[in-house]
Every structure is written in C-alpha cells, then in structure tokens.
C-alpha cells in the first residue's frame, strides 16, 4: 500500500469543511473567493424538509443577500439551465451553493459553466472542447442521497455529458443539520456506491499513494459506520462519517479510470431504472471473488482497507484477501437483516435475465469500456443474478 508504482497525476481542488457549525463558515469562505451573493440550488423535497432554511440561517448576521431556487427536478435539462442563467445574471449572483445530491450538482455544474462564460460553452464542452475560463465559486453541501459523481469532474444534463476538472466544486460542506436521516435503503445505497468506488480504487492498476490515502479513509469510515447508521439512523457522527467517506471515495474514483463494477452498475441502472448503489453492492463480492482467482499482487492489502491495521496485521498474508471479501459479505448480510426489503441479488432489484444479455451485447455502447473481459462481465452479472446471499 502507498508505494508509488508508476507515474501518476492526482488532483483534488476541493476545500473540505466538516462538522459542527460548518455551514456558518460559508460566508467567510465565499468572501475569500471574492463572492458575496450566492445562489442556493436545491430540490422541492429538500426545501420542504426545511434544509434551505437551515442554510439560509447560517448566513444570519453576515450582511449578505442570498437567493434560493428550490425547483431542481430529478432530470434537469438545458431549458432549466437557460432559465437559471438569466436569473443568475439578472440578479447579480456571483457564486452557487448546491444543496443536495446528483441532479442538484449536475445543475450547479452546468449553470456554473454557463455563467462563467456563455451558455453555448455547455455544448462546446460536451463535444470535447476544453473550457477556457476559470469557473465561478461552487460550494456543495453533501447529504446521504448521492449519485456518486457530486464531487467529481463529471456532470450530465439530459443527453450532454460534461467532463472537466474545472467542474469539481471548490468547497464541500458536511454539517449534521444538512446530512439528515434518509430512508435506510437510500443511505445504504449511497454507502455501497462509495464502497465500490473505494474498493475499485485500491485494486486499480494505476493506484497511487494519494488515491490509496483517500480510498483508505473511505473504506475505514464505511466499514466502521455503515451498520451502526442503518440500525440507528439518529447516529449523527456515523452519518457524517458516511458523508465524508462518500467524498473520499469519489475523489479516489475521480483520479482513476472507473472500475468494472462501477461501470456495470451504472449501465444496468440506466437500462433498468434501478438504484446504481444497490446494484454495485450486489456485484462487488462476485467481482472480488473472481479477481482473487487471478494472479496479481495488487490485492494483498485490500484487507488493510476493509479490516483496518489491527485485523490486517493479525491475519496471515495468504488468508487476507479472502477475509476482505468475507467482511464485505458479512456487511451485506447484516444490511439484509436491518434494512427493509434489502436485495439479496440483482434479480431482487427487478433486473431480468435478458437485461444482462443486453448489457453484454451493447458493451461500450452501454458505457462499459472494452478493457474488461466480456467473459468476466458475463460471469459476474450471472452470479449476481442467480446467487442470493
């Protein structure tokens, strides 16, 4: 672990503020980036749960004016960006605060491209031209209902997929008031998505000391907190740890090419309209079992990430990667006993046998890149479909 294996590049431009009264530091942080009038973007659901009021109250006594748009839909589109563009420009906003998961961040990133340059830059970036302007400040307030790409260089808006390191938010706030209890299944799905991203990062052939460091933080926090939080969702510290883990996992993921489980999970989720985190959770053990049969040295320390130093050091080297898989399966079994109608296979998620064929056949068209062995892909999907934990 941590030994630099080859040449690498690593980039994480986000400043993290996590914990007690983190939200109240927003005004001072924005001021440091020369921004004084932020626009908060959020969803009707979060707004109805009082989240925007909590964020607004953090600006109390700061002398700042803020705007709130609480109408981000589950599928934001270009029309919305154009409307928000006008609103941002006309009212003199100079920063965006994204409050919420996936669609909110997609909207915020796209809007930020538009307001930092021109709305046409969106299409230009989607067709492969790099951004030429530094973007305006973007702060993200993380919760536990996440898509897995919030803190990364990726955004998608309808048919447009946008990729640029400039899209990564400048600030990330994790504050227990805005990491509320979600439904157990939602939180479990988010944690399993993070787990997949982190585990695939530490098995990645291009891993480096920094992706290892972030993946280590992510896996440690998930393993130590996932079942506690599901059992007792009012465990605030546990929820904060899972939100931190999501950021760490996304950052390690963002600095490596996406792994096979992640890509399969996303492809299946797109074609079957199912939660990707849960699919990945079901695929992960089968993927690991398959990997273990291959002769690579990179997996030996997986159990250090999953089990921690004490457990890792107390285990014979030969047994250690097997132990890692066992631990993950144990967690999944525990989740089944805690979380109502938690799946035991991808079949339980409503995925049909013929859907698997479709994904294998479509291959890269479904978003699964060619470098994975199609036989492996088929194997893993079939196992995850047939075998129930």
């Amino acid at each position, binding site marked *: 672990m941590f030994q630099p294996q080859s040449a690498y590049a690593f980039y994480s431009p986000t400043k993290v503020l996590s*914990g*007690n*009264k983190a939200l*109240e*530091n927003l*005004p*001072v942080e924005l*001021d440091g980036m020369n921004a004084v009038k932020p626009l908060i973007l959020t969803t*009707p659901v979060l*707004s109805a749960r009082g989240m925007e009021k909590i964020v*607004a*109250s*953090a*600006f*109390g*006594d*700061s*002398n*700042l*004016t*803020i*705007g*709130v*748009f*609480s*109408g981000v839909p589950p599928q934001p589109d270009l029309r919305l960006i154009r*409307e928000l563009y006008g*609103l941002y420009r006309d*009212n003199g906003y100079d920063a965006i605060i994204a409050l919420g998961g996936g669609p909110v961040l997609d909207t915020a990133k796209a809007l930020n491209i538009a307001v930092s340059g021109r709305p046409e830059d969106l299409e230009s970036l989607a067709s492969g031209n790099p951004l030429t302007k530094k973007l305006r400040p973007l702060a993200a307030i993380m919760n536990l209902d996440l898509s897995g790409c919030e803190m990364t260089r990726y955004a998608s808006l309808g048919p447009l997929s946008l990729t640029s390191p400039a899209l990564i938010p400048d600030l990330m706030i994790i504050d227990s008031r805005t990491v509320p209890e979600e439904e157990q299944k939602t939180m479990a799905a988010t944690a399993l998505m993070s787990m997949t991203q982190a585990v695939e990062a530490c098995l990645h052939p291009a891993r480096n000391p920094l992706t290892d460091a972030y993946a280590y933080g992510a896996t440690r926090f998930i393993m130590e907190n996932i079942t506690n939080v599901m059992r007792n969702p009012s465990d605030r510290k546990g929820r904060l740890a899972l939100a931190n883990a999501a950021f760490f996992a996304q950052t390690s993921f963002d600095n490596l090419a996406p792994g096979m489980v992640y890509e399969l999970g996303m492809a299946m989720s797109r074609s079957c309209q199912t939660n990707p985190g849960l699919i990945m959770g079901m695929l992960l053990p089968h993927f690991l079992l398959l990997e273990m049969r291959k002769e690579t040295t990179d997996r030996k320390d997986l159990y250090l990430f999953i089990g921690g130093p004490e457990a890792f050091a107390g285990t014979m080297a030969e047994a250690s990667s097997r132990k890692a898989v066992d631990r993950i399966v144990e967690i999944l079994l525990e989740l089944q006993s805690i979380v109502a109608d938690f799946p035991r296979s991808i079949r339980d998620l409503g995925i049909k046998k013929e859907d698997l064929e479709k994904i294998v056949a479509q291959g890269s068209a479904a978003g699964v890149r060619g470098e994975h062995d199609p036989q492996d892909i088929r194997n893993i999907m079939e196992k995850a479909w047939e075998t129930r934990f």
Partner: protein
Amino acid sequence: MNHYKEMQPGSKPIKRAYVALMLWFVGRAIEAAARVDGVVKAEFDGLSPGFTFSLGVMPQGPTMIVGKDDQGLVRYRGWDPEGQKIDLKMKIKNLEGAILMFTFQESTALATARNRLIVDGEVPAACAIVRVLDIVEVYLLPKLIAKLAVKRYPDWFFGEKIRNRIRIYAGAVFGL
C-alpha cells in the same frame, strides 16, 4: 420563476448581545489581571510600547480592544476599533464560533485547532495574548470548566489565587 426567492438572512440579536457582554467582561478582566497577576503583567511588559489588540467577531463585531497606555498600564479600550491603532487583530470567523468559545464548548486551543479564528499581526504577540487569555480564563471560571478550557491546569498556590480571583472579578464587574 417558480421556486425562486431572494432573501436577507436576519440577524441574531440575542447571541450578539451575549458575546458582546462576554467580550466586555473579558476585556475588563484582562485589565484587572494585568494589575494583580505577575505573569500576566510580565507578558504585557514584553510587548512593544502602546501595544493594542482586538478580539472580535466577523464580519461586524462585537469586538473588544485592550491596549497599553503611555505609562505601560493595560487598559480596556472599549468596543469600537474606529480610530485606534491595533497591532494584533484576533477575529472569530462567525458568531456561532464565538458562541462555542464563550459558552466554553470549545477552548481557545480547540478553536484554534478548528480554524475558527483568524489572527492578523505578529505571531509572538499572538502567543503572548493567548497565554494571557488562558490565565484569565483560569481566574474567571470554576476549576471544572477551566480544566476543559486550558491544556494544562496550573498548580497555583491556592490562597493567592482566591485573592487574585476576587480582585479580577471586582475589576471586571465594577471597574475597581
């Protein structure tokens, strides 16, 4: 546009008032402590003539100012930085951070570790002032709370401490 509104987040008058009161109290307590406690006096003697510092909340106060006068005596100089030459500014980033400190949920050391303060000025002076604040806290607070507020509770001679404590309270409250 639906779902859109612009707003002026309000103020927090009660919290402001509480912090203002605490700052006033601590400011006057420092003045008194510099008279009765040898260590505090020595710390101020080591600072440049006329040295003045402020401790306040961003972006707009409340603030308290303490400085040395022409005779080298330490004086509480009120709350208004306007027109005062201030060598060292210690600014708490927001009102909630100040509440955490002045309700003793976070010690000075913890607040520093959590980056709740911005220090503008010479570092050695800032070190001296933090030591002064620690000593004043030990005088003002019951041992149980002060033990949480400072890294190491001093093993002072008991009788002397009680006497000084009474004098500092008298100074802070009544300006004696």
